[in-house]
């Protein structure tokens, strides 16, 4: 009954929007009318080759399309393309690619004769013609959008040497802070912040969409690897070699597409498809060696005290770290004919991490097919099956983390086995002997994941495009852990745990777009809907008291089990009207009407409107004559205003309800109220964003500058509002927080040299974001000292500081020990002592093409003006295990100095600005050799990633973060695994 009501509702909603739109016609057409089949007789075939006008080199990946039809393809490695079944008549063929000025040719097909149309493209720094996908059934040119969208091509992702797609985005995009949280194998957990932090407790990671389907990017740690260990986020299951390109939508543009999920921005990933032509086989292989560039400096003072007895000291880092490797192989087969294309690939990546006994294996197969069923109907089916197997080593901040054990153990204590037996942990309890952990514990994780989609594109007549996508993303993850008997004092009989997570996302979306030319104007009207159903279960089993040779849960005498189920449903409808005036002025208005099961029934349906304008001024005829032209070769002005929302995290999916949870009295099971009171008025976090900017071309577009200012106001942010505990509750989720993000993004691209023998291009990005919290229930501190209070940026560092003399020097007591703020009642005990949010982030990419064979690429990226909390050094101080403890032992620091400064967090908040030499690569094309061998292409590449870090930070790596993807707790380093430095050699052969 309820379902029928929902259907009726859905239909009435659709009609509601459709009424406002002329697209009602289109919708009815879709649902009932019979489309006419286009006349395929007398069709012709167009072939051609796309080359670079300057070097003559073939240009791959060029979109060659016939506007107004569904026809189009991409050029291959040799620059060639074929478009079949071109109806008789006059057509315009357009060739577009990022980094090149678009070109077009008029042709006439008659009598089925084949036609050749070659293109010579000119490299430019400013490409307004690149197409992006924005929620309409047909792709849109970037020039028509009022907001900035950045595309990253597959070749850039390939050359990054990153094992994950999100990691490959580091340094690529203005306005995106991409952080690798640890140096664990298989990605190490990546955090992405688009235009700053947009939430306080609901997560700030963007929404990931692969081929139009929302995918899971969970990063929960399901077993105890020493509390926080940041091993992976689930985007690591995607093979970067299969990516055709990525579009990053930072701003309000995402609103129409993803409404109540768009607050954090959207990253759309498009996978590779085949193209017409004979079968092409490409084999790519990469081998990288990786190691940690830094080691902790420990207390290796050779005496037990100043003038004391000699003592042997140990540094276990050689036993913990190793030189690891990454082996990556990818084989693809693609091709097609005039009606069908196929892309089949298989990938295998093994990442032997820099920690002993840790590794990540990923094997995946992908199949992407397109079939032109009729001239008006195309079916696209794609699927990817991935299996990953990881071996993790506890490396979190607490107790059994291997690096933690080094921090907490006096360097005089030996962990080396005696007669085969490992000595117990120095601190006993839940602490462990790290060498025992490496040798005898296991923590495997297995993921089986299938993601796929089926898409139907229907063009019943020239100006109407309808598409429907059904998508699925499901995986099963099993994380196990085995701790042998006798290894932990706290669990002397050993333990075993197995946690299974099943995640399933089902995604339905449809959109119809009608294009109506009317003189100098063109209207493009779209209506669409989207329904997503997400289901997550977690089942855990664990046991203690294992029989001596047993390793599985079933070996234990005392088992425990648990289960959790979360279900979310989101339904949205949207309509968009885009006006194009003479291909230079574009106005777009859209509205999305969205509902989610996570909100209270009365607050469920929310409206998210959007408006944007783009004006390509340089296309005006007067522009060339005007004085402006002396300065700008191209000029586009743009602006956008949009609203978007954010849903509660999965953990709070049921926060609207009052719930009663299990309570056991003796052996009898009952229920009691949960401590979080339900909030029936729960609604989405909401964002208003406007942005404006300009895309400027200088010197015949050899230099371009894209500049954007944005202003985001986030309201109704979900917070845990404490309740008086005499209510029997602790808290309630309430929409009470607010904050702002304001910033600028600049991307400068130049073609410095362009001759047949050398092309040198540069891209520099700069982005600065200012976050300010504007409303809260009360200030609060999370993590260690990350603080949220009104008027300050989210998560700033707040804690005790040094008492200082008038000249700024540290005040000391009579023994020379530093005095902390808390000891002087005349000053506040705690204050702001740092900020993990950078003042600005930037990147610098230089690419060189020497002749036709040799190319090179160098990428730097960095963050500036941010601090990190070096908890690693604090524990080295606390336990006397660091180099400073050696100084104290040697009498170079007063006795008790380290203990006195321990409560002073100011000491451990350090400048964490850094510049990393993120990528270096040198590629040589062996195409000539390949051709002699009957191959079509062969290349060899030497490359490196994270080769060097320039920083004042005293810990191992200023980039990592203990709290992983957490929203507020940024910039914490506690025994974190540094990001490896890697050197790689790779080759790619195409047959």
């Amino acid at each position, binding site marked *: 009954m309820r379902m029928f009501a*929902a259907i009726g509702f859905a239909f009435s909603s659709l009609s509601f929007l459709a009424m406002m739109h002329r697209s009602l016609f289109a919708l009815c057409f879709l649902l009932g009318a*019979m489309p006419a089949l286009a006349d395929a007789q007398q069709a012709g075939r167009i072939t051609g080759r796309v080359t670079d006008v300057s070097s003559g080199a073939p240009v791959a990946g060029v979109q060659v399309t016939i506007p107004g039809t569904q026809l189009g393809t991409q050029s291959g490695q040799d620059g060639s393309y074929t478009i079949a079944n071109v109806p008789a008549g006059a057509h315009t063929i357009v060739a577009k690619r990022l980094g090149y000025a678009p070109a077009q040719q008029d042709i006439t097909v008659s009598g089925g004769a084949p036609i050749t149309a070659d293109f010579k493209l000119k490299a430019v720094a400013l490409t307004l013609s690149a197409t992006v996908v924005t929620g309409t059934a047909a792709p849109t040119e970037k020039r028509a959008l009022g907001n900035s969208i950045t595309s990253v091509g597959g070749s850039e992702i390939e050359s990054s040497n990153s094992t994950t797609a999100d990691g490959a985005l580091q340094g690529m995009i203005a306005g995106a802070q991409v952080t690798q949280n640890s140096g664990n194998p298989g990605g190490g957990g990546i955090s992405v912040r688009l235009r700053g932090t947009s939430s306080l407790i609901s997560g700030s990671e963007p929404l990931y969409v692969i081929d139009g389907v929302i995918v899971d990017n969970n990063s929960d740690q399901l077993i105890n690897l020493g509390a926080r260990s940041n091993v992976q986020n689930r985007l690591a299951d995607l093979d970067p070699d299969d990516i055709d390109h990525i579009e990053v939508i930072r701003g309000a543009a995402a609103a129409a597409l993803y409404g109540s999920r768009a607050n954090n921005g959207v990253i759309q990933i498009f996978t590779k498809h085949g193209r017409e032509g004979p079968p092409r086989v490409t084999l790519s292989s990469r081998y990288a060696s990786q190691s940690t560039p830094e080691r902790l400096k420990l207390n290796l003072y050779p005496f037990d005290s100043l003038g004391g007895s000699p003592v042997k000291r140990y540094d276990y880092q050689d036993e913990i770290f190793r030189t690891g490797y990454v082996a990556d192989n990818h084989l693809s087969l693609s091709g097609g004919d005039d009606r069908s294309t196929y892309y089949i690939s298989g990938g295998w990546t093994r990442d032997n991490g820099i920690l002993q006994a840790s590794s990540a294996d990923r094997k995946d197969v992908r199949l992407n097919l397109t079939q032109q069923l009729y001239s008006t109907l195309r079916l696209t089916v794609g699927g990817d099956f991935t299996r990953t197997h990881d071996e993790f080593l506890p490396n979190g901040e607490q107790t059994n983390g291997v690096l933690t054990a080094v921090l907490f153990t006096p360097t005089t204590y030996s962990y080396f086995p005696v007669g085969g037996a490992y000595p117990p942990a120095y601190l006993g309890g839940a602490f462990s002997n790290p060498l025992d952990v490496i040798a005898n514990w296991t923590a495997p994780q297995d993921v089986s994941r299938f993601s796929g989609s089926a898409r139907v594109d229907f063009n019943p007549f020239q100006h109407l495009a309808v598409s429907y996508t059904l998508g699925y993303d499901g995986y099963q993850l099993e994380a196990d852990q085995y701790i042998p008997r006798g290894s932990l004092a706290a669990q002397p009989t050993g333990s075993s745990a197995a946690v299974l997570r099943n995640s399933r996302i089902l995604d339905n979306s449809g959109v119809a777009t009608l294009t109506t030319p009317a003189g100098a104007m063109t209207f493009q009207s779209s209506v669409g809907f989207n*329904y997503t159903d997400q289901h997550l279960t977690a089942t855990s089993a664990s046991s203690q008291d294992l029989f001596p040779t047993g390793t599985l849960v079933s070996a234990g005498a005392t088992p425990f089990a648990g289960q959790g*189920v979360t279900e979310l449903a989101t339904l949205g409808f949207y309509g968009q009207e885009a006006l194009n005036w003479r291909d230079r002025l574009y106005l777009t208005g859209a509205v999305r009407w969205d509902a989610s*099961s996570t909100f209270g029934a009365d607050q469920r349906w929310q409206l998210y409107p959007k408006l944007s304008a783009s004006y390509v001024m340089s296309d005006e005829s007067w522009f060339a004559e005007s004085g402006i032209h002396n300065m700008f070769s191209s000029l586009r002005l743009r602006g956008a205003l949009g609203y978007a929302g954010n849903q509660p995290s999965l953990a709070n999916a049921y926060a609207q309800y009052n*719930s009663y949870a299990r309570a056991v*009295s003796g052996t009898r099971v009952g229920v009691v109220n949960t401590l979080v009171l339900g909030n029936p008025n729960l609604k989405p976090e909401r964002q208003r964003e406007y942005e404006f900017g300009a895309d400027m071309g200088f010197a015949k577009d050899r230099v371009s500058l894209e500049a954007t200012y944005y202003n985001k106001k986030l309201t109704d942010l979900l917070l845990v509002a404490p309740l008086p505990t*005499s209510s029997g509750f602790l808290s309630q989720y309430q929409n009470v927080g607010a904050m702002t993000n304001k910033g600028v993004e600049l991307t400068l691209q130049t073609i410095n040299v362009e001759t047949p023998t050398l092309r040198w291009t540069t891209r520099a990005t700069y982005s600065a974001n200012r976050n300010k919290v504007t409303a809260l229930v009360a200030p609060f501190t999370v993590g260690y000292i990350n603080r949220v209070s009104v008027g300050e940026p989210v998560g700033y560092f707040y804690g005790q500081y040094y008492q200082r003399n008038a000249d700024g020097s540290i005040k000391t007591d009579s023994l020379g020990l530093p005095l902390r703020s808390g000891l002087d009642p005349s000053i506040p005990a705690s204050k702001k002592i740092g900020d993990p949010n950078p003042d600005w982030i930037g990147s610098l990419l230089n690419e060189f093409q020497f002749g036709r064979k040799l190319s090179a690429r160098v990428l730097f990226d960095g963050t500036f003006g941010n601090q990190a909390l070096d908890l690693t050094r604090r524990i080295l101080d606390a336990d006397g295990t660091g180099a400073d403890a050696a100084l104290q032992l040697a009498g170079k620091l007063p006795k008790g100095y380290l203990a006195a400064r321990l409560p002073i967090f100011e000491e451990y908040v350090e400048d964490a600005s850094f510049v990393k030499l993120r990528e270096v690569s040198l590629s040589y094309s062996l195409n000539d050799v390949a051709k002699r061998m009957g191959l079509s292409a062969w290349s060899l590449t030497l490359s490196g990633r994270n080769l060097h870090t320039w920083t004042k930070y005293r810990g191992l790596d200023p980039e990592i973060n203990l709290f992983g993807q957490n929203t507020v707790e940024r910039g914490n380093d506690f025994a974190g695994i540094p990001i490896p430095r890697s050197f790689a050699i790779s080759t790619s052969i195409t047959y």
Partner: protein
Amino acid sequence: MRIRTLIVPLAGVAVLASCSLDLTNPNTASQQSTLTTHDGIIALAVGLQARYGETLDNFAYPGGFITDEMGARTGALLSYRDAENGVLFNTYDAVETSWQAHYRAIKTANDLIDNASSVALTYSTLSGIMSMAFLVKAMAYGQLVQQYQDAGVNLTTIGQPGTFVDRATAMDTVLALLDSALARYQGVVPGSEFRTKVLAPGFDLLNTIYAMQARYHRLTNDWTGALAAAQQVNLGVVSQVPFSAVEINPIYNRSELAGYIYPRDTLRLEAEAGDQRVGFHIGGDTVPGNVRPLRHFAQYQSADAPIAVYYPAEIRLIMAEAAANANDLSTARDLINAVRTECGSALHEPQPCLPALTDTDLPTQAAVIAQIYHERQISLFATGLRWEDARRLNSVGGPGAIAKRCWLIYPQSESSINPNTPADPEPSEPSTTPESCGV
């Protein structure tokens, strides 16, 4: 033709996919199913006893710290180490967890009192549940007023911060709730459904009601009421809250599992030689890591060890105290000796196996009362009751006093939000000795 056969179903799938947005939470029971159904109320009444079980530890350990019964190991949280010296901050566990645990029990009792009558339950089940709810609510308030100076009797509801009443008014409320519990029990004797599905094995509802009447009448110095109730208690049974491997004994959890809090060896030093109650309460090796020696709880050595709601000795000593106050020293001595000479009983209770005291041992009313407090100290060790005894003896603060301060302060989780929260008693650390705690 074929094209339509494809498109129409596909478009259908698009909209027809089950679009329900009203998803219930499968992980927990809903408020509706808990408060308006027979099974929900039964489950909630079981949950009430679980919450009461949590209060016992929270009643025992803050008072245990303040009165030197318990100590914190050096490695324990600073909040514990401060509390054992009488130093409290409003975020400390010793202040927060007790407040919260007791009000959670009261919240669940209220859920039952407000809703059980509207649900289809047999009379004999309803009476048991209502009686239990009134009893637990009374015991929770009674324990609160032995820790915090004023109690918030009007429970906070949303947008309606709770108000506080003074101790005398709170005590009246406790006694009225106990009367309700007894009236419900006597109105319809709880039947088999209540006994087999709700009542925790080992928990004796009726005797506990009488025992609590005796305990709280004593605290209001109503000796007639205390004696009348005590005489109703069947001293041949004990009433216990059971625990299990799933619902771990909270004292065992805080002590043996967490390794934070242990009983002080002081008990052994202060008891008479040969007093076998010492071995009932403490034992095992000395726990290192405190200035003064710590031992282990002898009776809380496993996850499923039960906790007594009261010991029969408490009832005998209440009767003795009533007699002593009426200057009936002979009856009082007999009752004291009944406690002292208990030996070899089958009940799980502390048994001194000590010789009886003579009239010359206890010649005066003052000596008898002092002996009663001594027997209470040893018999009722680590139950949380000693703090109130210290207040009654005006032995608070200063050298040699039993307790280091009069009251806990109010926790931040209440005081920072509820504007009705009274000012903290003894706002600075207990550096000055109060003349009296005013009980």
